[in-house]
């Protein structure tokens, strides 16, 4: 019984302790000129969908949920955002060459078609991030159009 108490105490101390580790937030107020929405003249409906479904992990500005104040949840999210931005960062879209843009367009289309993105662990909480069939079709159509305009 004594050991159980000690373990519980240790866990509690760890939990409290990690709350004091400083967090690095992925947030910036200004929208850079290189942002996807400014590089392309994105229709409003598609803009809203991409921002709601992709921008939390694929841009320099995350709209954090309240539980990001709690560790180790915040670490988990930080890791997600880091990986997401490494694969695709809409805020820095304008810095990519046409070759890189074409590759990213292709990946975006494949991810959506294969229902790989947005991640189910994300849509569980962000239900507005889920793509309806029509939304998915529209976004894929739009991205395909952008991709084809690159190669001409």
């Amino acid at each position, binding site marked *: 019984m004594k050991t159980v108490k*000690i373990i519980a*105490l240790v866990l509690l*101390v760890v939990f409290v*302790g990690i709350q004091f580790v400083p967090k690095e937030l992925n947030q910036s107020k200004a929208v850079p000129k290189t942002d996807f929405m400014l590089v392309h003249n994105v229709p409003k409906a598609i803009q809203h969908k991409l921002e709601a479904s992709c921008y939390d992990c694929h841009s320099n500005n995350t709209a954090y949920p309240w539980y990001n104040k709690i560790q180790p949840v915040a670490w988990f999210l930080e890791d997600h955002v880091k990986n997401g931005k490494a694969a695709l960062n809409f805020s820095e879209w304008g810095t990519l*060459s046409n*070759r*890189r843009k074409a*590759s990213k367009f292709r990946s975006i289309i494949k991810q959506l078609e294969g229902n790989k993105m947005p991640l189910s662990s994300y849509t569980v909480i962000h239900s507005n991030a889920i793509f309806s069939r029509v939304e998915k079709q529209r976004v894929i159509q739009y991205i395909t159009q952008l991709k084809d305009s690159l190669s001409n």
Partner: protein
Amino acid sequence: MKKLKITVLIFTLLSLTIVSCKDIKKQEVKEENHSKMNYDNSSEFNKKMDSEDKYSDTKQVMSNYMVLKDALVATDKNEAAKAGNKMVSTLKGFDVEVYSAEEQEELKDIIIDAIEHAEHIAKSEMDHQREHFKTLSKDMIDLIVITGTENTLYQQFCPMYDKGSAWLSMDKEIKNPYYGSKMLTCGKVQNEIN
């Protein structure tokens, strides 16, 4: 009283661990920068070597690419993944310094793109590997335009896969990497590159 002591001790240990973890992270970043510097120095050194060696990186990349292509022809996912991995490391070590500034710019772009596709091939299922192989092939075709090639290469084309897809081969004979045995000889030679 004893309990309190234990608590304080644990808390101190914990904070120390956390602080030292952060330090390790920083150190890693520093080391990374350092190795980058070394890399720059070594490419400076390579520059001085014979121009005959200009082809060596291209040759290496192409030979990895051909292993990958053959694995896809054989529909061998594991071999393709292995070849993809090899290609990543060869591409990362590709020395662009021997080319003109303009060519370097273009080459770096091609290489970054190709690395991404090769990385995906290294960790994907067959159908995904083939998707990425399509873009990787385009990158390689563009690379060869700049670097040239010692061996004759054949640019081949399958009109069926994803609205038409090209690849490179050392043989004139068609062996389709996009379909493998399902449609082994589907395709045509589009271009002979010398």
